[in-house]
């Protein structure tokens, strides 16, 4: 596609969408840049005017001249702050939109880089207009408003199982790795600053403690940057959780080191006692944060138990409790990030068991939305703050910092892996180590921490900020852009896209029990033993407290199964009506007449198939076809966006099972109709058939002998009317070639259907894929997969 950027011709109809997107982007950037300074400029004017007006007004005596009533007045300062905030948010969102309209750009350059560039542009524009750049990356704004949504999103959807399994490794990287980085960078910088006695430069003013402080600020891997970049490269779960977990857990270390060095940088020395206190403080900060988060999480879970009558505000509890956890931890200088993670992770399984499906969707979408906007804003602000300065460029300092960051990271990862691999069952390979080292991105947290520094205590603050920004730019641009091709080049294992199947779930639970048993026999109190104990405790006491009603006794497998079926049902509805819809069958067909191909010995009923005269068979075919048409018509008039009423509250599960059986029944009969084996059935009118079928599901009370995958039916026309059972079968008939009939003639062969429920038919593959993509393409990449993770699996 030829890029005709910058062509502002008014007749834009000839341009294709991407170019329009680009044009829109530039217009918006200009707009943004111009409005903000305008806003800053006009506010003092208007306030001045109104003051003057009032002043005049109060002085007017009885013989004052009457001013004409102002039809249109401008009063900007009243709405200034919310207006500007909204404008920024709007800019961020439109940028995000714009990037995805330009297809090739988003695949080459990660979003974070583009956003920083936009921030630079906007900042530049503001500066050009001569106005003062608003202090956008003000630490309070950042830590209290921009960071929590991202962390909550990460914590709520944290995949608990891989996280817990690799907790030791993650902690090693987070704690020991960050400490190593901080001291190494700080120490070497100090050393570098002290050399060059010949020409004394600014660097000589640098003390040891400020260096160490700088080291601790710059050494922490940033969760926002890691998330932004790693989300686009889709590497395997293990690496993702290692780097991401490290970025979350190193917050405690950063907090302690930062406060420690900041406190004592003024004094100039750190004694051994302070060091010991620092270590103790670390444990307090980390564990305290987790404890605070867990308490709030349990409170939230407990509250959600009683929300069955006020479903509308359920999501609010999740958000508010989590935010309170964060703020409470921040009061005591505990690790707010860990509090937030703990809160989200603790409350999730219980809250999800209690809330309605719609609330669940709301929570998911709100979290994704907020975290997305936050992330976008953070990167834009980084760009703006860069333009703002203040900067003090020092070649030595900056270059040494960048190099040291890389070197320290590599050495740290390699050294730690060597130690860790002694304790791991599945060792980390060199490729893994490379990705972990390369994925250590720095981000806005480092910048905000640097911004927080007091200029009086730290005369080198400007230099620090410049260096921090350079490192951030380097990691985000260079490492962020090159990590994707490197991952391809090194052939690192990618994330496995397919969802968890029920088999995996069953077998995984089975293996859990097996391993627990083996551990008990060996007398070895390992990983599985404690997990099993925790599970038991959870089931016995905790679930009863925190989950409302019957759901507290629901075993995990059932919950998983329900979730899976529900998800499928919704997918089927959202992807639109099916082309091939098996219809309701004549209800008088009895299951007794069907014989499976290989009757297993345990099967109680032996069935024989009578033969159907040819004319009858035609009639039945006609009925089937007409039913098909009717259901298709009804389907078209239906609004595809309306979901079924809340399933769990309406006993959906029973409905599902009954309907499943009906579909299996139908499927079988439909297959049989091809083999002249449909037993004699007086063809009722379709409506009659449907009514009878729907209203009397108990007619089919024997075990379902289905050979095709059970389909999910969603009651489309209205929530509970049994008359309108419609049976969707998007994917069942994929490539069902008729298998060869055995010469016994009276037997029914199972159709060779697809093995999994998610395989689209070859014929309509593209269309169905598209539809699926549309309904599954939002919100974020990892949303759907994460949900399948059960708590304490």
């Amino acid at each position: 596609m030829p890029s005709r950027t910058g062509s502002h011709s008014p007749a834009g109809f000839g341009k294709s969408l991407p170019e329009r997107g680009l044009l829109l982007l530039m217009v918006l950037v200009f707009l943004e840049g111009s409005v903000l300074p305008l806003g800053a400029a006009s506010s003092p004017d208007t306030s001045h005017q109104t003051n003057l007006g009032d002043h005049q007004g109060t002085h007017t005596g009885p013989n004052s001249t009457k001013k004409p009533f102002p039809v249109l007045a401008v009063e900007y300062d009243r709405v200034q702050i919310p207006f500007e905030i909204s404008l920024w948010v709007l800019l961020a969102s439109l940028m995000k939109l714009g990037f995805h309209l330009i297809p090739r750009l988003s695949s080459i350059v990660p979003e974070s880089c583009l956003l920083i560039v936009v921030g630079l542009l906007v900042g530049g524009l503001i500066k050009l207009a001569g106005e003062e750049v608003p202090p956008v990356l003000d630490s309070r704004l950042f830590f209290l408003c921009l960071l929590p949504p991202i962390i909550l999103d990460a914590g709520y959807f944290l995949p608990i199982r891989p996280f817990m399994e690799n907790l030791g490794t993650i902690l090693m990287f987070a704690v020991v790795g960050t400490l190593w980085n901080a001291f190494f960078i700080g120490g070497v910088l100090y050393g570098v600053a002290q050399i060059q006695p010949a020409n004394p430069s600014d660097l000589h003013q640098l003390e040891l403690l400020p260096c160490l402080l700088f080291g601790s600020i710059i050494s922490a891997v940033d969760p926002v940057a890691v998330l932004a970049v790693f989300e686009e490269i889709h590497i395997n779960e293990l690496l993702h959780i290692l780097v991401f977990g490290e970025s979350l857990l190193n917050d405690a270390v950063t907090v302690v080191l930062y406060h420690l060095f900041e406190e004592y940088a003024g004094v100039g020395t750190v004694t051994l006692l302070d060091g010991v206190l620092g270590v103790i403080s670390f444990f307090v900060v980390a564990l305290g944060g987790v404890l605070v988060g867990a308490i709030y999480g349990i409170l939230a879970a407990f509250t959600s138990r009683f929300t069955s009558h006020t479903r509308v505000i359920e999501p609010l509890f999740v958000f508010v409790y989590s935010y309170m956890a964060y703020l409470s931890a921040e009061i005591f200088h505990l690790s707010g990030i860990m509090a937030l993670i703990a809160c989200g992770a603790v409350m999730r399984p219980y809250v999800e068991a209690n809330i309605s499906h719609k609330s669940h969707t709301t929570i998911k979408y709100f979290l994704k939305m907020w975290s997305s906007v936050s992330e976008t804003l953070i990167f834009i602000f980084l760009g703006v703050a860069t333009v703002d300065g203040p900067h003090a460029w020092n070649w030595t300092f900056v270059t040494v910092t960048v190099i040291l960051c890389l070197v320290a990271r590599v050495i740290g990862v390699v050294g730690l892996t060597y130690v860790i691999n002694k304790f791991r069952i599945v060792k980390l390979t060199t490729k893994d180590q490379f990705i972990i080292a390369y994925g250590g991105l720095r981000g806005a947290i480092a910048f905000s921490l640097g911004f927080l520094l007091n200029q009086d205590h730290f005369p080198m603050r400007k230099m620090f900020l410049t260096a921090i920004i350079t490192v951030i730019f380097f990691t985000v641009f260079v490492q962020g852009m090159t990590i994707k091709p490197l991952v391809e080049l090194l052939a690192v294992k990618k994330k496995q896209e397919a969802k968890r199947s029920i088999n995996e779930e069953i077998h995984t639970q089975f293996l859990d029990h097996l391993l627990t048993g083996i551990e008990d026999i060996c007398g070895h109190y390992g990983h599985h033993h404690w997990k099993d104990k925790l599970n038991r405790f959870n089931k016995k006491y905790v679930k009863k407290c925190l989950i409302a009603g019957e759901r507290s006794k629901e075993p995990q497998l059932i919950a998983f199964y329900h979730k899976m079926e529900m998800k499928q049902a919704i997918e089927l509805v959202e992807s639109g009506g099916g082309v091939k819809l098996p219809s309701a069958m004549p209800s008088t067909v009895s299951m007794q007449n069907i014989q499976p191909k290989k009757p297993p010995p345990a099967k109680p009923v032996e069935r024989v198939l009578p033969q159907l005269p040819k004319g009858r068979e035609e009639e039945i075919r006609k009925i089937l076809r007409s039913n098909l048409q009717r259901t298709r018509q009804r389907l078209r008039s239906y609004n595809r966006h309306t979901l079924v009423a809340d399933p769990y509250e309406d006993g959906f599960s029973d409905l599902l099972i009954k309907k499943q059986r009906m579909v299996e029944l139908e499927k079988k009969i439909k297959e049989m109709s091809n083999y002249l084996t449909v037993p004699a059935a007086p063809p009722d009118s379709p409506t009659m058939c449907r009514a009878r079928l729907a209203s009397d599901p108990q007619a089919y009370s024997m075990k379902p002998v289905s050979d095709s995958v059970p389909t999910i039916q969603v009651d489309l026309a209205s929530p509970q009317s049994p008359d309108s059972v419609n049976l969707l079968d998007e994917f069942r008939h994929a490539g069902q070639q008729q298998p060869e009939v055995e010469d016994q003639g009276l037997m029914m062969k199972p159709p060779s259907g697809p093995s999994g429920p998610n395989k689209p038919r070859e014929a309509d593959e593209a269309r169905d894929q598209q539809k699926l993509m549309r309904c599954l393409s939002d919100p974020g990449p990892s949303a759907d997969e994460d949900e399948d993770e059960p708590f304490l699996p």
Partner: protein
Amino acid sequence: MGSSSSNMDHIPDAQHLMQETGFSAAHLVRLYERFDFLDKDDRGELRLDDFEAVSELAMNPIGDRIIRAFFSPGRETVDFPSFVRILAHFRPTDTNRTRNGRNGAQPEPANSRTNKLKFAFQLYDQDRDGKISREELLQVLRAMLEMQVTEEQLQSIAERAIQEADLDLDDTISFDEFKKSLEKVDIEHKMSIRFLE
């Protein structure tokens, strides 16, 4: 830990066992100590009630299956080599072992991925016909779900599980289908115990 050499003398066929299962001497000693502990009557072999004395196993939904897996078909007791051979399945996989490097006559070690899965498969397949029938799957599900679900739900889950896994459509799950359905699960990690020294 006591003098390993004297302990080793108690263990019959120690060298052979070490070679066969891949356990180190220290591991073997520890396992022998455990075997001794379980063997309350000091008979040199374990019986059913010795296993059942392990209290946690009683709470395990598939505890009885695990116990039965130790006993070779037809035998009533478990001697130390059999004990160790079963536990060898749960050793962490040696990643640097090249199976095709050596002569092809070398059998696959007990803790290879395939053999681990085979062990698990045999726990499902109680009648040892090489396939997991629907009834066997239902039994496992019933045991794991501990009667908290209705029969209908059990049926649907078993139904769905078989349909997902059953590729040759014989209504049972063969070992290959079992293996395939677990291809995304990290079995080497999941089915390994770090035997402590």
